[in-house]
């Protein structure tokens, strides 16, 4: 068997020669020659278990790369040393597409893709470690939508990575389950980090700065996986999110106001705690309902069972933008409070008296934190309207949600 394996490895090397050398389960792609063809061929012919190593250098690609072999690690020499540039790409809607299980992408950069940066679709166990995805011209509506983009996937780990300039979300995890996003830096994107239509995500230790909005937890209608829930956003730095929204209209993030810290839209069981929030000119924390018309009876547009506690709040709300400027500031005055709930609830009873105890928003923040419940539904029901409720103490309480998300790729790393 071992013998046969060696022969197979040799065969792989033979087919892709002379650029690829095989050493047991490491394939090293050398610089020079047709690097694009050599790398793509390696991504197709690699046997499961292979580590594909990329050298230091700046490499240009004209078409998308794709990987559909399980148990593969692709590793560069560092996020500022191994640079895959897609500035001249003419085909494929992302830089790298991953459709196989147990893949890890490490220590490399993907730059200037016309579409998304790195997408993983429908996979189990995907890791991005110390990867940089960047649109080098800075914020621009012509930049690709997502930087790191796992979707319909399970066991997602994104750590130590940097994403800059995405015209939608820098780090976007959509319709996925069991997710850790930690210790990343998201800068100059429309949304820094977005968790959408997903279950069980821990988002912590990240710095999200100079985006339009720092961290978004969304749930949208008419999708295969809905009912986003169980998301914890903690110990992040979400500061100075001051980039004007440059997302193309039509996309939901195009509605995010400049200067949004953390925004929870729809979703259930979301815990926001221990974050440093400052210099977000619209508001530090927005808890809102999905604002658009939709046609999907199975969709719940409200944020429910949200627990906001022990965050550190700096300056916020002094220069609101978008819907915060048009709909919220006229009711709350400026500066807009550090935490705002739109008060959209389900039905007349909840509108008048608040949602059930087990569904409501609970807040436990330091003395002096400013807050408003806009009471949009109550305002609509009562003939004489309703003004915002600024009494943060009326929302005190706590929830005891789940413990930390655990991932198989972490268990494997620890046992090594």
């Amino acid at each position, binding site marked *: 068997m071992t*013998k*046969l394996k060696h*022969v*197979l490895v*040799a*065969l792989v090397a*033979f*087919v892709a020669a002379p650029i690829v050398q095989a050493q047991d389960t490491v394939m090293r792609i050398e610089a020079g020659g047709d690097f694009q*063809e050599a790398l*793509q*061929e390696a*991504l*197709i*012919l690699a046997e499961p278990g292979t580590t594909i190593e990329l050298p230091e250098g700046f490499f240009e690609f004209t*078409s*998308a790369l*794709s*990987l*559909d072999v399980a148990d593969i690690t692709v590793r560069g020499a560092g996020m500022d040393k191994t640079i895959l540039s897609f500035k001249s*790409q*003419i*085909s*494929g*809607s992302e830089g790298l*597409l991953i*459709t196989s299980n147990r893949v890890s992408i490490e220590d490399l950069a993907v730059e200037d*893709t*016309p*579409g*998304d940066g790195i997408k993983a*679709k*429908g996979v189990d166990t995907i890791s991005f470690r110390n990867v940089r995805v960047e649109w080098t011209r800075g914020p621009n*509506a*012509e*930049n*690709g*939508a*997502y930087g790191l*983009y796992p*979707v*319909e996937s399970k066991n997602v780990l994104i750590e130590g990575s940097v994403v800059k300039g995405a*015209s*939608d979300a820098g780090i*976007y995890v*959509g*319709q996925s389950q069991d997710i850790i996003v930690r210790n990343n830096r998201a800068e100059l994107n429309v949304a820094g980090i977005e968790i959408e239509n997903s279950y069980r995500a821990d988002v912590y230790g990240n710095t999200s700065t100079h985006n339009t909005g720092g961290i978004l937890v969304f749930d*949208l209608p*008419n*999708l*295969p996986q809905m009912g986003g829930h169980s998301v914890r956003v903690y110990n992040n730095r979400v500061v100075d999110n001051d980039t004007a929204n440059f*997302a*193309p*209209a*039509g*996309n*939901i993030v195009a509605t995010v106001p400049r200067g949004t810290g953390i925004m929870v839209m729809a979703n259930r069981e979301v815990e926001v705690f221990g974050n440093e929030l400052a210099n977000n000119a619209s508001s530090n924390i927005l808890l809102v309902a999905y604002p*658009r018309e*939709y*046609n*999907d009876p199975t969709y719940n547009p409200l944020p429910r069972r949200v627990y906001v506690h022990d965050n550190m709040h700096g300056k916020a709300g002094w220069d609101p933008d978008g819907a915060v400027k048009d709909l919220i500031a006229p009711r709350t005055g400026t500066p807009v409070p550090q935490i705002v709930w739109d008060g959209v609830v389900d039905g007349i009873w909840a509108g008048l008296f608040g949602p059930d105890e087990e569904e409501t928003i609970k807040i436990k923040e330091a003395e002096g934190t400013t807050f408003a419940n806009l009471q949009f539904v109550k305002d609509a029901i009562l003939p004489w309207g309703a003004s915002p409720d600024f009494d943060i103490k009326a929302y005190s309480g706590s929830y005891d949600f789940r413990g930390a998300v655990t991932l198989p790729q972490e268990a494997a790393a620890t046992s090594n």
Partner: protein
Amino acid sequence: MRALLPIILYLLVLPFGASSVAVAAPPSATTVNEAALLAARPARKLSTYNLFRDGKAQVPSDGVHPYDLATPLFTDYAHKYRFMYVPEGQPAAYTERESFEFPVGSVLVKTFAYPADFREPDKDIRLVETRLLIHQEKGWQAWAYVWNEDMTDADLKVAGKTLPVSWIDETGEARAIQYVVPNRNQCKGCHVIGHTFSPIGPKARNLNFSYEYDSGAENQLAYWSAHGLLTGAPAPEEAPSVPRYDDPAADLNARARAYLDVNCAHCHRAEGPGSTSGLFLTWWETGKTAWGYKKRPVAAGRGSGGLMYDIEPGKADQSILVYRLNSTDPGVMMPEVGRTTVHEEGLALLKDWINGLE
């Protein structure tokens, strides 16, 4: 296992061009090389399979049958010659919606070609590539073979290739493109349902029309049944059918949905690579939001073009679907692969359709 080793070692010492001897030489020039079809590794040369009596003229070997689709997938105006082969006595099983269930050993063959002048489509034809879908025990295998200049044979290309192609179109205008031969993974980009590789074209509804065989015109479903290529098929009148997208006499809605079905629905369906969008374009989809009617984009990014809906009824130019089919920018265009030019005729059809929606 031990018996395999000498063969593999033998392969290793051979230069590329001669590696086709890895599988036994074909028994006769006009019979399909079944051993090559079933071999673990693909042949380096297309000729090894012996699918053609005359490759350059695209004359198939015995047992290899030509077929056509009512509404085909658009691939940069390439002309396509399609053939199918099933092992003797093992017909494919009829299914109403999905591709027929072909037995192991079957192969679907599609050659992409450009006549020098589309006004004379049978003269000066340049064969670009021939794609094979081979059904093996371990599933369907997709391979692309690029024809050499003299069109005497075609070579396997695993990592894809970009080649310049030019022609004169029906209006007499010179056209030139960078034609993209897909790599294996790009094949999967369209051909995967769930996690299973699957053919796209040979579905009842797209085959259910009359084809000009050498023996005369005959409905393809009837021909396949009569020649032992297909079993379980109802009479053609009982089977579903789609119109040609460019048949002005056919119903506009049916033409548009047929076009979307064959060009988009292999991805845009609940089981396909485009499932995350929630836009589902199969022929049978009835959920209005699902097929795009006033459906908002999800992860379109700049593919939205600043527009609000995939299909804005009555307003083709305000519809994301039209915007993306009208683009050749890789960050915007749909389909994502398979074309570098806009299909003007298909786009015109979809515009007419959307402008007529209420």
